[in-house]
């Protein structure tokens, strides 16, 4: 048995020892221990170094609010986690843990020199100290701070664990499985409601687990608890332990994180490490209890100084006494009971110093009976001990005067500065708080959600009151659901009621300026820092918080917010509610990224859309690129070819003979109905009325602001049916825009819109021999130029498959696009590939498609346009139906800004020295102007062109269309490139090849 373990006490299993390591040393704890309780059982209080000053720190709490005892835990490769709270991590066999923020060792740490350089790190030090000189930042300050500060080490390996996400719907969600939560859950469940009760601890019970001497309904509290839990189970209540409610969102949506395997010696294969629950509850009962506050005085952070309630928990729940000879400094009755429990368990309590002048007589008597020295009206002014507290100095305070101090030797110092209702989840809902002047604490006030608050979470103290309050909350929840619930009452004996006060830093007889009286342990913020922030002009608590970093660490100020507020309010000479409380935000406790990511990682991070032809491309060794959610074949390298060589070959083959391209990702929408042509006239810039069935046309879609949104070829299949194509990435957006106008602006039009993107597989066949290839496969259609000229569309049979055949071109060559039902896409592709062998048909990818279209100056919406480009800017005036009275965006084309001169316009660029430009490169008109230069535009597309034997580029340039032949300059790191402005139609400007 470990030195500080008391046989017969606690809820740990004495017959089940568990070995673990801390900083390389082996220790033994018991099943049921946390790392913190097991270390304390072995007499280890020093568990970490502080963030800024690297001061030795011990465990302060026994719960998830722990600011100091942050450790790294590991379960093998990839399973290292920093900043785990030793007070939460349950012991498991083989657990390895390490302390943080120390070098070379926890007991001797070089960074502790920061503690001596105290002035350097005072409030606002980030803002003040490191301002000057600039060069010092990179070389001295930043490396120094990065090395010295920071919490823990980031894991560098990929997390091999899985994390689950689940949804849960319930009538009542009760958060907190203490006395109030249990009675609320049981009351609501007995009304017939579906109830879920969650608690972040490994077992339900809350403070009952630390108060075994209290008797309820004639039984010990633990026996009562066991019976309540079996009643809850019998009533069908879902009990979830190790489950933290991390956030409370709109309409009673609560996020829970369940820790599934971290406590297990051997996690079952495939089990998720954590499970995120998305809960929607009709009613929420918040029974989160209260958090104990430390007292603020010089040296309140030495190892061995801890909250009195924590010491009581270690004793009763884990059977661990935190010292042989304790002392207590308190401003609340609760710490007295902790002292009594310690004495009753065989430890010594030297003294209880209470800051209040008068304390309940029964407490004083009970203390004297146990041989405890009682000092009321006292303050604490110092502690001693380097790696463990050795003594506390206490002084009487009379009429505001601090008297002579006396030193009380101790190996553990229990402090209690009162209790703060846990308001975090309530604050997530923007529920308002009210200041209770008696208890000097904030209480929940106006609710914004369908919730009840019960127990210590709304300032009640003592089991009698809390149990009664839980029943009331359960009844209220049931009634809100239209059910009736019965009241019940519990008889409590040996109750531990209590009151206390909250206060600022304790008075001292020494210089307050020298006191290291910590308010926020985790961020090393002292009372002096907060007063300094106020002196330097911070008035709002939000400014004080940011200037001092009080409450900004991973514990979100669970222990420090109220103490910080008390001190700031005092410094400002205001009441705390006038200064205000900072806002609590989710998550309630630090939450792993894995829990948030859930299934959204690796192959399931995002869907990958693949065309029916994708397997063929993959088998051919195509290189792919993502295009919105699609993966598309980028190029098809042959053995030994790099991208440049493959693309050059694909371009050459297509222009010389014939190429084939998988265009299935093109967005497709069917516009059908008697008013289809009217709808098209209103949506697109082009005129559609005179377009005959069997013909197609390039369509341009604007936003109402006149800027280009999308484009694509549109075929009229019959008088009342249009086959619209859109850009690959724009399909959903265009359909949404069409639906919007159809449903809300023109509901009178008789039109139906259907997305057909995935109904059709599309193969583009381009090149001088394209017709010869297709003629072998097409039935029911004469493909001759006379019968089926450029911009024709027809339904026919291709390779025995029903098809919609377009004669269109995105390459400038004779071109066709064959659409067949998607399930036949691969068959069509193979048939064309086979038929094309005679002409060395060349499959090409998106890169070649881009080069070929750029050689013709065909734009790509989103690449050559950026949401501020009008048809005139892009040189597409010809696509506007001038005679049309209206279409979406028409009115904007005459807005003053749109017709103003010197808009950026799309032009071609040819470099003088034949270098290829970089896409995105900025363009200037005068390269010798002083910095910063006036940008005149940028390069939008740039490729090596085989057909032209030189690189080509497209760019938007101020007033570009009136600058033909002028020279512009593109400054690059290695020199400025000169380029001539040209037309974007680089290849076959007369368009003869299309007519072949």
């Amino acid at each position, binding site marked *: 048995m470990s030195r500080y373990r008391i046989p017969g006490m606690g809820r740990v299993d004495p017959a089940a020892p568990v070995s673990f390591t801390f900083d390389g040393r082996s220790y033994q704890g018991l099943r049921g221990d946390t790392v913190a309780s097991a270390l304390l059982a072995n007499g280890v209080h020093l568990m970490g170094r502080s963030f800024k000053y690297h001061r030795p720190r011990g465990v302060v709490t026994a719960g998830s609010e722990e600011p100091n005892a942050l450790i790294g835990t590991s379960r093998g490769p990839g399973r290292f986690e920093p900043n785990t709270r030793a007070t939460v991590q349950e012991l498991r066999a083989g657990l390895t843990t390490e302390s943080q923020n120390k070098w070379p060792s926890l007991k001797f740490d070089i960074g502790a020199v920061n503690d001596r350089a105290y002035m350097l790190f005072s409030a606002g030090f980030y803002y003040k100290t490191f301002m000057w000189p600039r060069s010092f930042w990179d070389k001295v300050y930043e490396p120094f701070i990065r090395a010295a500060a920071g919490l823990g080490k980031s894991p560098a390996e990929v997390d091999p664990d899985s994390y689950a996400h689940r949804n849960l719907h319930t009538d009542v969600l009760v958060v907190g499985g203490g006395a109030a939560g249990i009675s609320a859950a049981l009351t609501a469940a007995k009304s017939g409601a579906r109830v879920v009760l969650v608690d972040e601890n490994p077992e339900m019970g809350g403070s009952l687990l630390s108060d075994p001497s209290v008797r309820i309904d004639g039984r010990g509290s633990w026996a009562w608890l066991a019976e309540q839990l079996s009643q809850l189970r019998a009533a069908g209540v879902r009990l979830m332990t190790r489950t933290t409610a991390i956030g409370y*969102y*709109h*309409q009673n*949506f609560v996020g829970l994180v369940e820790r599934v395997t971290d406590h297990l010696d051997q996690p079952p294969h495939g089990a998720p490490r954590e499970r995120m629950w*998305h809960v*929607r509850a009709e009613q929420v009962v918040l029974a989160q209890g209260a958090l104990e506050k430390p007292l603020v005085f010089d040296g309140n952070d030495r190892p061995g100084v801890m909250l009195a309630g924590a010491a009581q928990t270690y004793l009763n729940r884990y059977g661990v006494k935190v010292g042989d000879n304790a002392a207590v400094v308190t401003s609340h009755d609760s710490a007295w009971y902790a002292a009594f429990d310690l004495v009753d368990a065989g430890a010594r309590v030297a003294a209880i110093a209470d800051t209040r002048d008068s304390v309940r007589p029964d407490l004083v008597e009970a203390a004297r009976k146990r041989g405890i020295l009682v000092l009321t009206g006292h303050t604490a002014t110092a502690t001693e001990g380097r790696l463990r507290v050795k003594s506390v100095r206490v002084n009487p305070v009379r009429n505001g005067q601090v008297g002579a101090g006396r030193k009380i030797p101790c190996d553990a110092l229990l402090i209690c500065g009162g209790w703060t209702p846990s308001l975090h989840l309530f604050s997530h809902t*923007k529920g308002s708080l009210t200041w209770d002047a008696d208890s000097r604490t904030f209480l929940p006030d106006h609710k*914004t959600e369908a919730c009840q608050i019960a127990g210590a979470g709304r300032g009640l103290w003592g089991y009698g009151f809390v149990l009664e309050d839980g029943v009331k909350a359960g009844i209220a929840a049931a009634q809100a659901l239209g059910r009736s619930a019965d009241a019940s009452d519990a008889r409590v004996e040996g109750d531990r009621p209590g009151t206390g006060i909250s206060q600022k830093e304790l008075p001292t007889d020494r210089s307050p300026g020298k006191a290291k009286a910590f308010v926020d342990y985790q961020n090393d913020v002292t009372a002096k820092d907060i007063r300094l922030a106020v002196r330097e002009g911070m008035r709002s608590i939000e400014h004080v918080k940011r200037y001092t970093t009080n409450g900004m660490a991973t514990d979100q100020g669970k222990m420090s917010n109220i103490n910080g507020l008390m001190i700031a309010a005092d410094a400002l000479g205001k009441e705390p509610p006038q200064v205000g409380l900072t806002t609590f935000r989710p998550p309630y406790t630090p939450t792993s990224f894995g829990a948030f990511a859930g299934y959204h990682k690796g192959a399931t991070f995002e869907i990958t859309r693949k065309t029916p032809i994708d397997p063929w491309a993959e088998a051919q060794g195509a290189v792919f690129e993502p295009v919105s959610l699609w993966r598309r074949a980028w190029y098809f390298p042959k053995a030994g070819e790099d991208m440049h060589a493959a693309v050059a070959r694909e371009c050459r083959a297509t222009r010389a003979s014939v190429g084939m391209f998988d265009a299935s990702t093109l967005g497709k929408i069917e516009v059908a109905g008697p008013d289809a042509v009217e709808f098209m006239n209103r949506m697109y810039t082009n005129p559609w009325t005179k377009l005959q069935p069997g013909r197609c046309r390039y369509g341009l879609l604007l936003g*109402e*602001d006149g800027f280009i949104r999308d484009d694509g070829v549109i075929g009229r299949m019959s008088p009342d049916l249009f086959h619209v194509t859109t850009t690959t990435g724009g399909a959903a957006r265009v359909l*949404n825009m069409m*639906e*919007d*106008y159809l*449903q*809300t*602006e023109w*509901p009178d039009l008789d039109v139906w819109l259907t997305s057909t993107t995935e109904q059709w597989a599309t193969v583009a066949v381009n090149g001088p021999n394209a017709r010869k290839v297709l003629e072998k496969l097409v039935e029911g259609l004469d493909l001759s130029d006379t019968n089926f000229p450029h911009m024709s569309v027809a339904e026919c049979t291709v390779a025995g498959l029903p098809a919609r055949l377009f004669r269109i071109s995105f390459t400038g060559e004779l071109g066709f696009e064959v659409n067949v039902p998607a399930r036949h896409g691969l068959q069509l592709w193979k048939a064309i590939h086979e038929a094309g062998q005679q002409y060395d048909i060349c499959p090409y990818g998106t890169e070649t498609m881009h080069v070929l279209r750029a050689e013709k100056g065909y734009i790509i919406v989103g690449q050559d346009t950026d949401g501020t480009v009008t048809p005139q800017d892009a040189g597409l005036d010809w696509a506007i139906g001038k005679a049309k*009275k*209206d279409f979406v965006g*028409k*009115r*904007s084309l005459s*807005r*003053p800004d749109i017709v103003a001169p010197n808009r950026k316009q799309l032009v071609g660029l040819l470099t003088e020295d034949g270098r290829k430009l970089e896409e995105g490169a900025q363009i200037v008109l005068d390269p010798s102007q002083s910095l910063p230069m006036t940008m005149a535009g940028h390069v939008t597309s740039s490729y090596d062109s085989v057909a032209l034997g030189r690189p080509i580029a497209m760019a938007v340039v101020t007033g570009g269309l009136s600058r033909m032949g002028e020279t512009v300059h593109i400054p690059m790191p290695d020199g400025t490139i000169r380029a001539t402005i040209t037309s974007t139609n680089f290849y076959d400007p007369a368009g003869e090849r299309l007519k072949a």
Partner: protein
Amino acid sequence: MLLIHCPYCDATLPEAEFAYAGEAHISRPADPSALSDEEWRDYLFIRTNARGPHFERWRHIHGCGRFFNAVRDTVSDRFLMTYKAGEARPDLTVKEAAE
């Protein structure tokens, strides 16, 4: 994650099924060419940016696909009501008095 009532499906469903679609009750002018530059600018760009009840459009994009109108309080992020496209802007004072 808000819950939103689709007036066409008559069902209250998670926000993830819906898409926001801007302020409601801004009709496209019947004849845009008749508008002055200032009037057209106002139609394009000027919005109320309400603090409190805001009339706005949503689409049940992963459901029935219909656009509808909603009144949402921009302070509390609470939906006061939803109603079908084309229905008149509801009088909130009447609604409050009825409740």
